[in-house]
């Protein structure tokens, strides 16, 4: 504590919302007696203009240097109060808001005495805490006005064009020799049945012509460092054998090349040369040497009129600096050989939907003839198997792949146009969305047969494949021998994307799709600042939704890079270099990867640190602390809330401040009622708590302590929540070593929708502690001594 504290406290009655329960005049009188408080006042509506004017005046006239406001939840008016005291020249750190409405009057309506006592305790906590506050300034960081887009499918193409149009520098990295993704492989697209290549190739050409876009094809991202706003990306340009700038796309190399290999662009149907271009309209319009197949005969080198070929190409690495990243790496189909019951890879006349797309393409591997690719046999009947692995919690994937119903109908219609009998075996036809029901109807009009019932097995029958399944409409079994079976496999995320997500530190969900920052309200941002995602990489969807997401992601990136980034001051810091012995435990634990060791000392990157506080308890030498939530501040608040309280039972409830705190506010809003023994102290994450904080609280009067954490995917601090769970378990054992029973520490996770349950949790715990009685005075004294505070 330093300097003279001139603390002003304002207690709001909120009309009768607070005043009808809490005895505000009594609280104000009691507060006046607290050390450091030079001014205390009751207000009818603290958020009203006259009240705010009075706060400002008091700061000016009475020379207040700390302001404590006891009113509604800080989520309501914190910003207003903050700006006003800032305008009076007070640093925002010197403002404390105590929630005596949602956490006091609204939940203890039946216990005015308890509520009044608790209001006073909470205010005392804030008064004690504010004495330790120090002024802090938010930092600023310049951003790099460039964006890395990973994946050149329709999502990546759309996002790149939009960003370039805005004027940002774009690096578009695609692993294949050409951009275009899956869409370029389709002859037609649902629901309009327009020519896919006709609508996509102009966009691809714009990418190659746009000066703001640097296209890096046949490339992969190798590493990402730096911070949001200033990422450093290492990109490896795989050996391509052909100088893209020099190549004029004449195709001489391919003609002279003697080696044939599997054509992956055509989904493994048919062959191509080792010197190849995946498809004629490829962008960039340059050939590639497939070094896995190439025998290095050198004929192409001799033949190339431009001298563009280098068979010694080893690839090269480039480093890019960007401010934001858009992940658009799309999807792949589930490997159907893993579901042998469908006979894929075993029976020649079982193929995937993507292979069917290629067969239907006039430039496809069968030259637009409808034949079984492996046998050359003419195809006159086709059965599509929907949900071949989707919506199955036992094998395959549990979710719906969303596009299969529609593309199966699309392929079916194209087949009907050519006179083929088509059967679609489905569990449910899912065609919600604009123009989709109409598309379904059109398929029926064309005479596509629909059979409700899951097909689980394909049986070979001569040259044909027997599809056997239930017709659920009839309770009968259908046996249908067809020439070709088309499987509609699950849409899944590729291994490469998962590695990339790990590199980017963006979590994926249980279905392996990139997790949105918020699934409803922030669907194209990831959990990491500055990293956005669009298209199939965040879940199965059609081209229309993909494009909409790409536009949105581009907008988010523009927004993100539009101004210098504010760096909040709430960061962890190393108190003293000499204390740190370089053990590296903080480096290990930090969920953000914000800490590095430099010269054997921990260095915390202020921009990356999220302020979760997980590193602080980890340090065995107590060398770490946090700005805005220092050890002194935290302890002073704990002591203030507990010590001197007249309540019989005191339960200190630490609440995660984003999710759980909101749940507590909702419980208040709904006027649920829980015992006034519960005293809430918000923290960024429970991982900020040290064992010593708990002992400190017990020593100073807590009879029970609750740690209420946000569930992993809800809170903003990623793994910090997992860390706190593990620690709480240890703490429960450790407090027993200090003669405090394990049950005196409670840990659980609370979702926002759990707010009703919160009432029960609080009641249950209060009953438990009440039944067991307050903590022994002897134990408290022993703890005080142990903590070096002596008997109080």
């Amino acid at each position, binding site marked *: 504590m330093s300097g003279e504290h001139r603390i002003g406290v304002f207690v709001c009655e909120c009309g009768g919302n607070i005043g009808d329960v809490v005895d505000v005049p009594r609280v104000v009188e009691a507060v006046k007696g607290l050390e450091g408080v030079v001014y205390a006042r009751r207000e009818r509506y603290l958020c009203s203009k006259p009240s705010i004017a009075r706060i400002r005046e008091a700061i000016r006239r009475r020379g207040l240097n700390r302001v404590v406001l006891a009113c509604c939840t800080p989520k309501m008016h914190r910003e207003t109060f903050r700006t006003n005291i800032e305008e009076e020249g007070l640093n925002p750190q010197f403002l404390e808001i105590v929630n005596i409405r949602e956490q006091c009057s609204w939940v203890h309506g039946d216990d005015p005495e308890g509520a009044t006592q608790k209001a006073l305790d909470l205010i005392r906590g804030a008064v004690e805490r504010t004495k330790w506050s120090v002024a802090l300034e938010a930092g600023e960081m310049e951003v790099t006005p460039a964006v890395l887009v990973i994946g050149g499918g329709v999502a990546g193409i759309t996002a790149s064009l939009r960003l370039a149009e805005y004027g940002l520098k774009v690096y578009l990295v695609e692993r294949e020799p050409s951009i275009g993704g899956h869409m370029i492989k389709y002859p037609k697209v649902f629901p309009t049945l327009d020519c896919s290549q006709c609508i996509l190739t102009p966009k691809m050409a714009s990418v190659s012509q746009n000066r703001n876009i640097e296209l890096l094809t046949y490339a992969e991202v190798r590493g990402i460092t730096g911070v949001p706003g200033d990422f450093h990306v290492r990109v490896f340009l795989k050996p391509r054998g052909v100088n893209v700038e020099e190549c004029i796309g004449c195709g001489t190399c391919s003609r002279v090349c003697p080696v044939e290999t599997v054509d992956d662009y055509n989904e493994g149907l048919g062959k191509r040369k080792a010197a190849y271009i995946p498809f004629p309209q490829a962008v960039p319009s340059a050939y590639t040497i497939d070094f896995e197949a190439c025998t290095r005969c050198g004929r192409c080198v001799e033949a190339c009129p431009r001298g563009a070929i280098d068979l010694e190409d080893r690839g090269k690495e480039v480093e890019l600096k960007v401010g934001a990243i858009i992940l658009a790496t799309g999807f792949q189909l589930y490997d159907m050989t893993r579901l042998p019951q469908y006979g894929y890879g075993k029976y020649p006349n079982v193929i995937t939907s993507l292979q069917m797309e290629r067969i239907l393409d006039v430039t496809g591997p069968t030259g637009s003839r409808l034949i079984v690719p492996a046998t050359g046999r003419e195809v006159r009947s086709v059965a599509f198997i929907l949900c071949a692995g989707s919506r199955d919690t036992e094998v395959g994937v549990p979710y719906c792949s969303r596009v299969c119903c529609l593309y199966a109908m699309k392929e079916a219609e194209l087949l009907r146009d050519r006179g083929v*009998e088509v*059967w679609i075996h489905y569990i449910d*036809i899912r065609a919600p969305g604009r123009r989709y029901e109409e598309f*379904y*109807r059109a398929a*029926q*009009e064309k*005479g*596509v*047969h*629909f059979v*409700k019932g899951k097909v689980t097995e394909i049986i070979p029958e001569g040259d044909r494949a027997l599809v056997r399944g239930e*017709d659920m*409409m*009839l*309770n*009968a*079994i*259908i*046996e*249908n*021998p067809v020439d070709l079976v088309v499987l509609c496999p699950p849409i899944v995320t590729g291994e490469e994307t998962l590695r990339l997500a790990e590199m980017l530190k963006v979590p994926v969900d249980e279905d392996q799709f990139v997790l949105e920052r918020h699934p409803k309200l922030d669907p194209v941002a990831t959990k990491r600042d500055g990293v956005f995602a669009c298209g199939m990489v965040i879940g199965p969807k059609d081209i229309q939704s993909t494009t909409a997401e790409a536009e949105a992601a581009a907008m988010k990136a523009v927004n993100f890079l539009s101004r210098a980034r504010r760096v909040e001051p709430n960061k962890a810091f190393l108190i003293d270099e000499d204390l740190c012995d370089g053990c590296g435990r903080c480096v290990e634990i930090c969920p953000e990867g914000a800490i590095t060791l430099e010269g054997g000392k921990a260095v915390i990157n202020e921009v990356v640190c999220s302020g979760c506080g997980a590193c602080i308890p980890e340090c065995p030498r107590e060398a770490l602390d946090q700005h805005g939530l220092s050890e002194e501040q935290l302890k002073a608040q704990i002591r203030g809330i507990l010590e001197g309280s007249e309540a019989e039972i005191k339960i200190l409830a630490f609440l995660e401040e984003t999710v759980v705190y909101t749940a507590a506010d909702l419980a208040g809003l709904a006027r649920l009622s829980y015992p006034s023994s519960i005293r809430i102290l918000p923290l960024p994450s429970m991982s900020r708590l040290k064992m010593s904080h708990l002992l400190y609280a017990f020593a100073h009067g807590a009879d029970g302590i609750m740690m209420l954490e946000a569930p992993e995917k809800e809170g903003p601090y990623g793994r910090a929540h997992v860390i706190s769970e593990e620690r709480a378990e240890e703490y429960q054992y450790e407090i027993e070593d200090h003669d405090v029973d394990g049950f005196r520490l409670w840990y659980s996770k609370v979702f926002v929708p759990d707010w009703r349950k919160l009432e029960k949790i609080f009641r249950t715990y209060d009953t438990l502690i009440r039944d067991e009685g307050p903590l022994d005075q002897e134990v408290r004294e022993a703890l005080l001594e142990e903590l070096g505070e002596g008997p109080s």
Partner: protein
Amino acid sequence: MSTLLAGRVIRISERNGRFSERVKALSGEEIDLCFQCGGCSSACPMTSQMDLLPSKVMRLVQLGEEAVLKSRTPWICSTCFNCAARCPRGIDIANVMEALRQMLLRSKFDHLKLETVGREELREIPPIALISSLRKFTS
């Protein structure tokens, strides 16, 4: 309900396609549009007498399953057109019923055999009913 369906195996062959096409041609209805919502059956006043619900008749016709001709349902159908009024796909199911009856009648099949009608009954049935039944139910 129906022994026509339970546990049956329907094996698809070109014959099935031909049968559906004939019913389509005779009825003039776009049978493929039926998506088995069941609306016709809920609207039908005669289902308690039927061995197949109207929607199941539609399904069997879609699949080209000739066993549908053995069903009593087309004969029970009173041609009240309730089904047609309710079908969300605009199919006139009663027309399909008529087509099925016609297919049998054209093969010299009589659903109503006068000789099996007793004297007593003959006296009680109004002559007009008898005549229209003969029109509808005999070849």
